[in-house]
């Protein structure tokens, strides 16, 4: 019975599958994740294209304090909207880049059957994602002298700039939260020895999701935060 059970597991080991003519050694799980990421990519593309169309079609995109004082516009509870904190958000971007390299190091440790290394790198990846969420919370609601976009007058529903900003960044934040949860589950599975023996397929699939979250942020950071008003 035991031998039959073991044999059954061996037969299901994706590493033993013959390579597919078109997709090589890519497992079903990996192909499934890629297809999910493609559909998710379309969701972000819709948000970013909508943002681009609204911004490109508007006569005045950002009612700054300067324009408010000149009497050009009046938006939100304060009459004007704050600028985005580029240095702070660049720090969050760097944090996600750090978490991407720790993710591939976790994958490498898994392939090399180094459970301790895998747990360390995976834990650091989850920590990076959690810190990113803390940073996003500070950006929205403030802490000390940092952030507090809402308090400074960037309120959802008050302008297209505010609404597209919160829709896109919070949708991404939801992905980071999902990623941290996903990676935490992977950490527990790794701790229990599920990936011992170099079975890296599930960890590689989780890594695909995490790197996608990083990839999307690269685009969000550029198009939402960095591209200034025409001058």
């Amino acid at each position: 019975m035991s031998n039959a059970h073991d044999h059954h597991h061996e037969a299901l080991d994706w590493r033993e599958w013959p390579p597919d003519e078109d997709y090589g050694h890519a497992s079903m799980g990996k192909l499934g994740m890629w297809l999910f990421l493609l559909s998710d990519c379309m969701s972000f593309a819709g948000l970013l294209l909508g943002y681009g169309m609204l911004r490109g079609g508007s006569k005045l995109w950002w009612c700054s304090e300067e324009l408010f004082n000149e009497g050009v516009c009046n938006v939100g509870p304060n009459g004007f909207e704050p600028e985005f904190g580029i240095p702070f958000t660049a720090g969050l971007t760097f944090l996600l880049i750090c978490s991407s390299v720790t993710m591939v190091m976790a994958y490498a440790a898994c392939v090399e059957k180094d459970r301790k290394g895998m747990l360390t790198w995976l834990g650091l990846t989850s920590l990076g994602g959690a810190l990113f969420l803390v940073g996003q919370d500070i950006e929205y609601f403030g802490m000390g002298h940092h952030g507090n976009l809402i308090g400074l007058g960037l309120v959802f529903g008050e302008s297209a700039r505010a609404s597209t900003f919160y829709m896109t960044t919070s949708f991404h934040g939801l992905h980071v939260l999902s990623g941290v949860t996903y990676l935490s589950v992977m950490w527990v599975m790794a701790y229990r020895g599920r990936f011992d023996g170099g079975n890296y397929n599930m960890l590689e699939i989780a890594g695909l999701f995490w790197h996608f979250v990083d990839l999307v942020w690269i685009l969000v950071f550029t198009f939402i935060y960095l591209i200034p008003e025409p001058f």
Partner: protein
Amino acid sequence: MEVHIDRKQYWVIFVALAVLTLIEVGVVYLDITWGQMVFALTGLAVAKAAIVGYYYMHLGHETITLQMTVLVPMLVPGFYAIVLILEAAWRMIF
């Protein structure tokens, strides 16, 4: 089954991404035209995204079929954006 692990390359990519991010932030403060800035920032973002996809997501080690399965649909929104920009420019000019 061969698995590609190159720790040195992973760290090189990490440094490259960090440097490109610094350049991106620096570009915002450069004294250049708005069009040049948008072109530079978009180029840098696409380069960073491509690096993440190719090296960290291991697309570079996948078959050409899987690479095309992923790349072609991902290029569609970019193509659509170009069409929208051209259409908007055409309306502004004429």
